[in-house]
């Protein structure tokens, strides 16, 4: 891939972030702020003695523990962010190939020497690889603020804070795991990404309605024509276990990516994504 192609792709990703700052940066920042504010509100209402004991306890508990072992605990704290990213991703994907047709800016985008394939791929990469970077950075900022604040509390309540340092390290490691989880989830849910993009590109109005409606219809038709429910089974397999979305240790990364179900999902997702790419020809 030539240097120019890399610049081009970077510009496409940059465009996505610039056009969707609310989803990529605004939403997680709001969530982080809410969590911090809520925490402050709770802590200022706790009896100070209890607070000091709580801090001491936490410090003792975490002291000396390997950050890699404790990191998974912090991933659970990131759940609000996972949910936010999931919702923002759905909003992003269902709108991204629809919005520019609605407001006619598609004529500008398509008057540039950027292929439909490049366009669609850049949007997938933007939401699966780039957006989580922003989310993780914001969570990091939140942990940093919390850490500073806990340190101050510790000092003012005369608590030994060594353990809190370990806790912070574990939180950092958890951020890496969080990022990897986001990537793995995108891979795992590639069919969903493809489905949303397909209808984003197809619909003249209400793309979300189309994507949900056709999904139900297709499931119904499958039962009617084949008498089978593989679509239902398949979707259920994909969503049944929350475990599927989170990576708790680095060693499981490889096995998750090369799992048969993941790879089959990539195949199915690619079919839908190809449909979305060709669908970009029909912009009227």
């Amino acid at each position, binding site marked *: 891939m030539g240097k*120019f192609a890399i*610049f*081009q792709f*970077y*510009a*496409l990703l*940059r*465009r996505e972030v*610039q*056009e969707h700052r609310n989803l990529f940066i605004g939403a997680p920042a709001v969530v982080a702020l809410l969590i911090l504010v809520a925490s402050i509100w709770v802590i200022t209402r706790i009896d100070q003695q209890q607070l000091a004991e709580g801090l001491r306890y936490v410090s003792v508990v975490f002291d000396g523990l390997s950050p890699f072992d404790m990191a998974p605990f912090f991933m659970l704290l990131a759940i609000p962010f996972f949910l936010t990213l999931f919702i923002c991703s759905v909003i992003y994907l269902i709108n991204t190939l629809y919005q*520019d047709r609605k*407001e*006619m*800016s*598609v*004529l*500008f*985008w*398509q*008057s*540039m*020497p*950027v*292929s*439909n394939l*490049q366009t669609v791929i850049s949007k997938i990469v933007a939401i699966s690889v780039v957006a989580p970077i922003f989310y993780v950075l914001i969570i990091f900022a939140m942990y940093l603020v919390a850490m500073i604040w806990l340190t101050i509390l510790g000092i003012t309540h005369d608590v030994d804070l060594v353990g809190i340092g370990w806790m912070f390290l574990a939180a950092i490691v958890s951020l890496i795991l969080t990022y990897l989880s986001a990537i793995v989830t995108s891979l795992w849910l590639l069919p969903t990404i493809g489905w949303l993009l397909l209808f984003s590109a197809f619909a003249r109005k209400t793309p979300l309605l189309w994507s949900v409606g056709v999904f139900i219809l297709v499931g119904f038709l499958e039962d009617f024509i084949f008498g089978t429910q593989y679509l239902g089974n398949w979707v259920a397999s994909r969503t049944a276990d929350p475990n599927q979305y989170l990576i708790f240790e680095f060693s499981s990364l490889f096995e998750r990516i090369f799992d048969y179900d993941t790879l089959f999902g990539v195949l199915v997702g690619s079919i839908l994504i190809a449909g979305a790419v060709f669908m970009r*020809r*029909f*912009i*009227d």
Partner: protein
Amino acid sequence: MTNIVEAKGLSKTYGSFTALDGVDLSIPSGAISGLIGPNGAGKTTTLKALTGLCDVEGELSVAGRDPRRARHKLMEDVCFIADVGILPKWLKVFQVIDYVEAVHPRFDRVKADKFLGTTDIPSNKRIKDLSKGMVTQLHLALVMAIEVQLLVLDEPTLGLDIIYRKEFYDRLLNDYYDGNRTIIISTHQVEEIETLLSHLVFINKGKIVLDSLMTELSEIYFEVLVAPDKLGQADALGPIHVREFLGKKSYTYESVPRAQLAELGELHTPSVADLFVAKMKEAKNG
């Protein structure tokens, strides 16, 4: 002279509406070509077809490529400005410029900045906060900084006030056109561009009604003010259009030999606007 656009039998329907009905078109390289027609005639559809933004049936070659295949490759050599403000509303001016610079191999940032420097466009404003005239200025500045063979403009000055319109064509001719590039402009405001054109195309109801170099027009079309005593003679020669003008009748003829018409009075070439009206009326009357 080669043709930069060769189109044969272009057809496009939207449901029951026929936008293009067998359009044959040839546009020579280096021409400034005007695509003129009433609203709904098929101008926008034709231009979109040429730039690959609209799928059509028929044979089509633009700058040596089929726009329906590698549109993105074609866009390295062709630029397009549409009438409706199509720059992305939520981006800021400098973000759009950065984007084009990164994405277009033939974009000259220095030129673009120079063109923009002569406008009042603030670089930090969002596109949606600019006036329509400024958006067109911006788009034109971007396009003029790109080395392309063909520039396609679809009613670029629609809705702009006169100052922006005049400036638009000034820049286009003086700063951009170098005799090698081809420009295709569509409009229904004929008077504005008729002095610029070197090639003329009339389109009506999805069909091409006229396709001619301006230099050839004066050999084919004639207008003559006929004195009352010669009216019978004038009618007999088969005019395509007759109208009242300053108390006399003005007859327009197509492909009638000059010698035959000379007797009727002083001949001159009809203005593009008058010719347009004549051809439209002719089509209407069958």
